[in-house]
């Protein structure tokens, strides 16, 4: 028969695809049998620990690790590259390594016990020359004075001056959002073991199983083919776990030196500090509208820091989603001695949204209109209307309507500050967002055994999102089998290459290749069944563990697979491809209802609505969990979570989970998740969901607080102190 057309099944025919299913690795996770990197304890495993800089900025004048080597139980000592002083071969001048932030690794020790590793670290002598440091990411004038400010880009379009002059309403304000950490509950790290002399097996907590062997191999002088990276289970990454990090290289190097396995996982304080953060952003914004509430002009200057690199939020996403025709955007990065940034869920978008859509909300308040109406009125200025291709403005309009119904917006909304006389003020806020989520690269091998067993091999990884379950669902739906019967093998660099899990590219990146491989397999099986049973291959379908012809059973799935011959047959899938299985560009609307106690400054999220379009849904329950998880991360960065740097010492002073405040189970109000999914969405193809739902909630919550208390609290997170300080000022 001709090749089966590449497409998902008609929506109405799906049995498990897009439905609510339990995750196939749930039992292992709920019983404690799932093995994460830190759970690998092969015999003789040594404890690896890091020596880190106590200074935010310093030169290393000397390192002496000899005493550490003699500490009982210490089996290996590692000095990170370039940390030890060197001599410039041409000039004879000494070269000293410059520490750029507190916590930067200097050396590592592997020992028989954790306590002996600590003893080893204490025996290392380091001579520092402390240098002037700067960690005040908000203080732009001081950064300029110190030469630490880097103008990044200025872009202008239209007649800004004329537009502001002609505008009926103009507001100017200052807005901000502080730096946060990724704070993966499972820290970064690995268990490294050499076998057969120079073959490395690294159990690495990673979002990039297929991409990390080479990252180990190069610094260790190994062939990449001799490195096996394994990650069966991992406890979150959020964009911070793409690399074999320098502490992982240290772990592997010590394992090679000691000829023993070594495990080196970051402790919590280090996890909060060095393996990633989301840059801060602060902005002065002026935005104007005409008499009808149409946005006509935008002028912003934002700044912030990504740490020693001195970056800030990409100016290309400012203003966020809404683009008045006349606009100017300026940006300045600040070089600080603070732990470096890494991609954090939807890089740049949450900050840009929190700056932009709070300013627009302030404009609505200044005009005296419901922001719902103002947002609706300006949907033709969203990026879709300016050909940047994100979510269609009609989808935004539909999502606004759905969210408003779920929130009962029109009945509950009141003008800013008119929340009654009592100390607890309630308010509503909204914001909207967009994201790409196109399919990443991926390959897979789907093996079908003569007894009907189906298994797949793919070098992807499951960050906790449900990738493993999604693959089982796709193959089960394709072959008409129970999804629990599909054997899914992922998390190994020995499997067919799959791309890193970042930017919401995973689900598209793995679902396309699996569907394509499944259709190839089905085509072969249908041909064999057609020949054997004298039926037309074009009439065949697979359902209920049977092959059917025009709806009538012909044979069982196992009988059909026995026709493949005595050995398993493998089918390869690749992607991405422009065949309609996957797509990109989504949008979403979020609305928050808050209650703010103006006497204590404490804010509670009462109700939080997320409406999201995501194209074709693969696993409904897991998709919903992605949104719910994003909502608690959003409540965290909106109300409590921030890195607090001490300007006097340059240190991250709340690097522990007592003081780095994340919401607990009692801090979360009612969360409502609704997918926008008319038939057109199913036809759109599979699109990633990890990033979008974490974007607009910060602005929505800030807008709700402003609506409740009658004024903008300019900088997220909206801690009780910030709220009380603003109300008293």
């Amino acid at each position, binding site marked *: 028969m001709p090749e089966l057309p590449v497409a998902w099944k008609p929506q109405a025919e799906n049995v498990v695809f897009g439905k*609510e299913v*339990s*995750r196939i*690795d*749930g*039992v292992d*996770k*709920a*019983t*404690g*049998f*799932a*093995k*994460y990197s*830190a*759970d690998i*304890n092969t015999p003789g495993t040594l404890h690896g620990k890091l020596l880190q800089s106590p200074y935010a900025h310093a030169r290393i004048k000397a390192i002496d690790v000899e005493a550490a080597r003699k500490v*009982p139980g210490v089996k290996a000592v590692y000095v990170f590259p370039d940390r030890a002083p060197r001599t410039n071969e041409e000039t004879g001048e000494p070269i000293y390594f410059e520490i750029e932030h507190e916590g930067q690794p200097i050396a590592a020790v592997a020992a028989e*016990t*954790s*306590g002996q590793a600590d003893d080893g670290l204490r025996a290392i002598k380091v001579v520092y020359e402390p240098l002037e440091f700067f960690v005040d990411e908000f203080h732009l004038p001081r950064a300029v004075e110190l030469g630490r400010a880097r103008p990044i880009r200025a872009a202008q379009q239209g007649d800004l001056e004329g537009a502001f002059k002609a505008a009926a309403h103009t507001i100017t304000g200052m807005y901000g959002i502080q730096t946060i950490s990724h*704070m*993966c*509950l*499972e820290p970064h790290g690995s268990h490294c073991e050499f076998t057969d002399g120079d073959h490395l097996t690294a159990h690495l907590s990673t979002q990039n199983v297929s991409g990390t062997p080479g990252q180990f191999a190069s610094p260790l002088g190994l062939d990449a083919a001799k490195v096996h990276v394994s990650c069966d*289970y*991992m*406890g*979150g990454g959020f964009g911070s776990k793409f690399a074999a990090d320098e502490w992982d290289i240290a772990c592997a190097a010590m394992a090679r030196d000691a000829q023993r396995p070594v495990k080196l*996982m970051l*402790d*919590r304080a280090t996890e909060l500090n060095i393996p990633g953060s989301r840059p801060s952003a602060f902005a002065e914004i002026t935005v104007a509208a005409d008499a009808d509430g149409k946005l006509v002009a935008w002028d912003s200057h934002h700044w912030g820091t990504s740490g020693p690199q001195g970056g800030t939020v990409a100016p290309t996403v400012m203003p966020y989603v809404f683009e008045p025709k006349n606009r100017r955007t300026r940006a300045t990065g600040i070089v600080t001695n603070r732990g470096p940034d890494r991609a954090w869920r939807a890089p740049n978008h949450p900050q840009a949204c929190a700056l932009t859509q709070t300013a627009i909300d302030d404009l609505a308040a200044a005009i005296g209109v419901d922001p719902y109406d103002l947002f609706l009125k300006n949907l033709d200025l969203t990026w879709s209307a300016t050909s940047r291709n994100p979510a269609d403005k009609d989808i935004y309009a539909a999502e606004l309507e759905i969210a408003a119904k779920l929130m009962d917006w029109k009945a509950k909304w009141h003008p800013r500050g008119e929340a009654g006389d009592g100390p607890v003020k309630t308010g509503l806020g909204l914001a909207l967002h967009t994201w790409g989520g196109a399919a990443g690269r991926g390959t897979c091998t789907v093996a079908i055994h003569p007894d009907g067993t189906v298994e797949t091999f793919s070098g992807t990884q499951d*960050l*906790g*999102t*449900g990738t493993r379950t999604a693959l089982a669902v796709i193959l089960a739906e394709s072959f008409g089998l129970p999804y629990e019967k599909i054997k899914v093998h992922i998390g190994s660099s020995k499997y067919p290459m799959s791309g890193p899990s970042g930017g919401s590219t995973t689900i598209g990146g793995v679902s396309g290749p699996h569907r394509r491989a499944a259709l190839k397999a089905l085509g072969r099986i249908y041909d064999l069944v057609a020949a054997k049973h004298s039926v037309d291959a074009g009439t065949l379908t697979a359902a209920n563990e049977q092959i059917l012809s025009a709806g009538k059973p012909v044979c069982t799935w196992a009988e059909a697979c026995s026709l493949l011959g005595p050995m398993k047959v493998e089918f390869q899938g690749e992607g991405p491809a422009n065949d309609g299985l996957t797509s990109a560009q989504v949008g979403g609307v979020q609305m928050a209802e808050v209650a703010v106690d103006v006497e204590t400054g404490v804010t509670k999220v009462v109700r939080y609505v997320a409406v999201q379009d995501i194209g074709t849904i693969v696993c409904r*329950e*897991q998709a*919903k*969990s*992605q*949104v*719910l*998880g994003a*909502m*608690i*991360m959003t409540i965290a960065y909106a109300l409590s979570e921030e890195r607090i740097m001490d300007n006097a010492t340059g240190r991250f002073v709340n690097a*522990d*989970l*007592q003081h780095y405040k*994340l*919401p*607990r*189970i*009692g801090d*979360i109000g009612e*969360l409502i998740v609704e997918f926008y999914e008319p038939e057109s969405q199913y036809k759109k193809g599979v699109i990633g969901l990890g990033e979008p739902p974490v974007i607009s909630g910060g602005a929505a919550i800030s807008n709700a607080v402003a609506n409740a208390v009658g004024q903008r609290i300019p900088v997220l997170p909206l801690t009780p102190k910030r709220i009380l300080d603003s109300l008293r000022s």
Partner: protein
Amino acid sequence: MARKRIVTARINGCEQSFLCEPRQTLLEVLRDELGMTGTKEGCSNGNCGACTVALNGRPVVSCLVLAVECDGTEIQTVEGLADKERLAPLQQCFLEQAALQCGICTPGFLVSASCLLKENAEPTEEEIRFYLAGNLCRCTGYDKIVKAVQAAAAAD
């Protein structure tokens, strides 16, 4: 190094004796000495609840309990919740309600919730949230965890 001590405890219904240093926490002994890695290390200073185990029926963060304190005690970890081949109703409800994602916080939540349900078979939503406030989750959204505990309470 201080001399190692022999500690005998009933762990998940089986009496076990183990050697440990006086400085070792119960968490370290469970994971590193006894190979019971279901109990997770999240923060090692008692703030995240990932390492929660039941000590004489009460939930404790095992990172703050010295192993030598456990002599003669009854300890239950996540590995002991299921009845041989059958999941405990609470575990089953966690799966059915999709109350887990990455799974690092899950063992701690399960042990805490099982202690709650033994103390209070019909907890209100507020009581569930209060009791589980020591367990931190970064990615699941909490809502489904509350619903799973409610479902388990209703099932018993």
